[in-house]
Every structure is written in C-alpha cells, then in structure tokens.
C-alpha cells in the first residue's frame, strides 16, 4: 500500500498522540524532563529566589496538560511514581538529622522553642486569617497543615476533614512563597546566623524551603531539614488541637 510509505498524515500523528497522552510513561517522563529543564534554568541564573525549580516545572507542565486536555487524574497515573517517593524521602531526612546530632544537641533549647513558636503560629495564623476572610470550612481545614511537608499535610488534612487535593496545592504554594521570599526577607532584617535562617524557612515552608536553604548554604540546609522533620511531627499533633480550639 503506497500511502503508508509517505510522510505521516495528520491522522497518524493524532493516533500516536492519543496513545501517548493516555500512557503513564509519557507523564512520568514529562515530569522529570520539566524538572530537569527548570533546575537547569534555575542553576544557569545562579538560583535566584523567583526561579524556583518547583514553580518553574509546574508552570511548564500546566500549559501542556491544558493544551492536550489531559485531566489531572490521567497525569497523576504517571506522576504518582515520583509523588510516592515523598514517603521514603521523609524517612531519608533521618540522615542529615543524624549527621548533625552534635550541633543539634548543642542548641536543643533554641530548636525546641523556635519549633513550637513557628509551628503554632503557622497553624493558628492560617486558621485565624482564613476565618477572618470567611473562607469555607473545608478550605480552612485544608489550609491548617500548610506549613508541613506534603505527605504529612495530606494525612492531617484528611483526618480533620479537609480536601487532600486542595491541601497539596496549598502546601506547595506555601513552600514556594517561603522559598522565594526567605532570602530577601532575611537580608532585609540583617540576619546572618545561617542556623536561624535555615530553621525559620524549614518550619514555615517544609521541603521546598529546605531545598532552597540547601541552595544557599549547607548549614542553613541542615537546620531547615531538622525544622521540617520536627515540624512534621508537631503539626500532626497541633492541627487537631487547633481545630478544636477554633471550634471548627
């Protein structure tokens, strides 16, 4: 059949695309490629706060899904393999904690006090502000655990009656807000203590803040990791209590 030897027709391309767009492998690959591109751009620019790799990768992927009319559930069929790694990655934070055990032991009091202050303010201010704005209850409950790492926040939100998929987005946005603003904010305040800078961003913006801290300074990164891990523990205890206090 001579027509099959010619250039691919529009029909062939459409058929190929309809196969590719339903294939989990496509979206898994797209996620990794988007991240690699975002990370390369961020590095090339010298890791400026606004060129956050998570933000850039999401901004690359969302138009692709939109144009190809791919529903999020189909995208997630492929991307879930990466999402799944959040669990083992949380466990892996044991290593920086262990490696820094001597420094941590030397500043146990500041760590515990700053952790409690940051964690309580993160949860209470989110609920109080959301109430002031008269947001719907399920949105408020999804906002409450926003400063803790994604897998923990999803579990906490679900337990108190929030919407896990909305929580995931609010957690990511919180991470990006912290990661983008921490460097200018700390420089403005003239804070030069890398431990305090790292710890603050780790408490307020979990893994994305921690990834930013590692970009800037290794000591800040280690302290951000400590803050993030400890806050994961504390937030899961504070949110159910806070929800009760606010009568939600």
């Amino acid at each position, binding site marked *: 059949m001579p027509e099959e030897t010619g250039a691919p027709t529009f029909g062939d391309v459409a058929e190929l695309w309809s196969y590719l767009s339903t294939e989990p492998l496509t979206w898994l690959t797209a996620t990794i490629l988007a991240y690699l591109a975002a990370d390369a751009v961020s590095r090339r620019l010298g890791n400026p706060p606004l060129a956050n790799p998570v933000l850039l990768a999401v901004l690359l992927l969302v138009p692709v899904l939109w144009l190809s009319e791919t529903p999020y559930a189909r995208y997630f069929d492929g991307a879930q393999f990466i999402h799944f790694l959040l669990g*083992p990655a949380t466990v892996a934070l044991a*290593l920086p904690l*262990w490696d820094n055990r001597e420094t941590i032991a030397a500043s146990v009091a500041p760590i515990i006090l700053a952790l409690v202050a*940051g964690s309580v303010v993160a949860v209470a201010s*989110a609920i109080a502000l959301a109430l002031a704005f008269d947001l719907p209850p399920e949105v408020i409950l999804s906002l409450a655990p926003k400063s803790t790492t994604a897998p923990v926040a999803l579990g*906490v939100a679900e337990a108190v009656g929030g919407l896990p998929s909305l929580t995931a987005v609010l957690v990511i946005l919180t991470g990006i807000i912290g990661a983008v603003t921490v460097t200018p904010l700390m420089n403005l305040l003239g804070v030069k203590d890398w431990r305090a800078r790292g710890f603050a961003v780790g408490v307020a913006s979990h893994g*994305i803040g921690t990834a930013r801290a590692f970009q800037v300074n290794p000591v800040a990164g280690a302290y951000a990791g400590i803050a993030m891990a400890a806050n994961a523990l504390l937030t899961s205890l504070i949110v159910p209590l806070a929800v009760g206090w606010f009568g939600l």
Partner: protein
Amino acid sequence: MLLTLGLLLGCELLGEVTARALALPVPGPVLGLVLLVALLALRPSLAKGLRATTGVILANLSLLFVPAGVGVIGNLEVLSRDAVALIVVLCVSTWAAMLAALFTFLAARRLGRRGAE
C-alpha cells in the same frame, strides 16, 4: 542503593503499621524517620552505606513536589474563587511563622550564651 531503598521503605512501612495499630495522629513516614534515627543510634556504621542514595534523594527533593504542584489544575475553581484571600492568608501566615521561629531561635541562643558566661 537497593539496600538503602529497602531500609527506607521498611522504616516507612513499619511507621505506617505502628501509626494505624496504635491509632496515632502522627503520619507513618514521620514515625519511619524516628525509627531510622533510632536504628542509626544503635548501629552508627549504617550511616555510611545509606548516604550515597539518601544524598541523591534529598538533593532532588524539589522534583518530588512537582506532581502535587501540578494538582493546581484540578483546583482552579476553588483557588480562583478565593484567590485574593488565599494568597493573603498564605503569605501572611508563612511570614508570621518564619519570623516567630527566627526571633525565638535568636533570642533563645542569646539567652543561652548569656547563661553560659
């Protein structure tokens, strides 16, 4: 690498099982983290073998948040309805938490140093 992955997943699974069995409010991976720290305290020699793989995972932590971030596409309705309020709440609350942790940390260190003198 496989050994590390097996250990990480094993700790997570044990954490998950413990949390469910005891009906704890703490998520499984967090208990898994505590468990791994306890294992490292019992056998410090474990750390050396783990570091290569955990280093790769933690260096690319940002990648793991991308699938959840793309979820923005499924929540555009809620997000656009309350966009201004949500942005204000997220920014103010995140900065408040950051500043609370920062100033508490600095104050506690200053007090500790004064106490030691």
